[in-house]
């Protein structure tokens, strides 16, 4: 950010200079070219994700960004909050790369997300060391802001709130536990109940499922499983069916993201027309 206060990402210089530089560039573009800002932020997230993978799971290094983020999340290396922020930057960055117009408040939100993620990232690459970041200070906008641009800004903020809510709802639908649940208590309750049932089953001499078979299936290579003389046909069918179903869900998620981009575009178009109308009327 080219102001007296310096960049929000300056603190990163001593940890990862390249990522810090991208953050500073994103700040410079946030008001004048929000699409470029998102592009820089997406690149920043990609660099952070790749560095984390190099440090913690090098065998995942060849994957693309979405697969890297999912894997980091799956292995508990990426907390939910940071993952949400990184996915939001990835999605909005992709939309910007593909030509979607971006309101300034969208880019500003992602910039704020990037700042929060950066602090966590630096702490991770420093093996948990405490990192001093300071508060995020929004880069100041152009001095020419008027009543109309203020209205546009407020409408865009409201739209972003709405998009954030819907993304959150999507995520809540996928999780095993609701966000508000007391996880350790719930886990303890379920485990206690399982142990009770186990004691009853043992006392009744109830046999276990074929644990040896389960272990064999676990150890099998996928090709072996699919070509197995008795399991193969059913398994191939299940695979085809599952792929089809997951693809449908994936397309649904993509459609929603496209809809969010369309809503942003419509908002910007509406305000552009408003502005032109005022200009024509000489307001």
């Amino acid at each position, binding site marked *: 950010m080219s102001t007296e206060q310096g960049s929000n990402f300056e603190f990163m210089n001593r940890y990862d200079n390249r990522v810090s530089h991208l953050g500073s560039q994103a700040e410079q573009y946030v008001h004048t070219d929000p699409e470029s800002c998102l592009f820089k932020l997406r690149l920043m997230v990609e660099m952070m994700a790749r560095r984390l993978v190099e440090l913690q799971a090098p065998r995942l290094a060849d994957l693309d960004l979405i697969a890297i983020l999912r894997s980091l*999340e*799956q292995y508990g290396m990426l907390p939910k909050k940071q993952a949400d922020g990184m996915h939001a930057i990835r999605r909005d960055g992709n939309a910007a790369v593909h030509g979607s117009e971006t309101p300034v408040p969208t880019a500003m939100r992602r910039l704020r997300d990037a700042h929060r993620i950066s602090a966590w990232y630096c702490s991770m690459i420093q093996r948990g060391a405490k990192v001093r970041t300071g508060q995020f200070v929004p880069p100041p906008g152009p001095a020419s802001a008027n009543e109309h641009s203020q209205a546009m800004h407020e409408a865009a903020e409201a739209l972003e709130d709405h998009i954030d809510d819907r993304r959150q709802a999507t995520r809540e639908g*996928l*999780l*095993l536990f*609701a966000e508000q649940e007391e996880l350790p208590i*719930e886990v303890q309750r379920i485990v206690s109940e399982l142990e009770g049932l186990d004691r009853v089953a043992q006392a009744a001499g109830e046999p276990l499922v074929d644990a040896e078979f389960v272990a064999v299936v676990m150890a099998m290579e996928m090709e072996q499983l699919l070509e197995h003389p008795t399991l193969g046909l059913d398994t191939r069918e299940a695979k085809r069916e599952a792929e089809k*179903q997951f693809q449908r869900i994936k397309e649904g998620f993509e459609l929603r993201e496209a809809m969010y981009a369309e809503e942003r575009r419509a908002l910007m178009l509406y305000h552009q027309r408003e502005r032109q109308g005022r200009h024509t009327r000489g307001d």
Partner: protein
Amino acid sequence: MSETTATMNEQEQLAQLWFVAARAMAVADGTVPAVKEASAGLYAQAILGLSEETCRVAKSPESIGNLTLVDCLAGVHALPREQAEKIMTGVMMISFADGHMEPLEVRWASMLASACEMTAEDFQRCCASARVIASMFNPSAPPTDDTTSQEAEA
């Protein structure tokens, strides 16, 4: 109208049963690894055909909070065969996700299989399908450990 309500109730009940069954398998080793989280919701929506909203409602404390594992077993027992098998497959998918199986996980699988009145053959089919689906969610899973069966039977 009443048919719609009945369908809604059936969907909600299916969602509740799924999330209780899935949670039990996910935490049977005493932890909640993130690997098992999003796959549970994806499975619910893609394979069980539940809506995002139904999944969210089913997880609210008012909805799922009073359900015990015994209630879940009774509910699964009463389900149509195809749905019960899908729940069994999904539960096994969760157990396969981290590449190993603890004794309580085997016990929970065993109880569910009994509640579904499954034959050994049905159960094997579910396991094989579950393994395939688990690999879709988690293609880079760590190699499995051959000692799991001995641990499970201990």
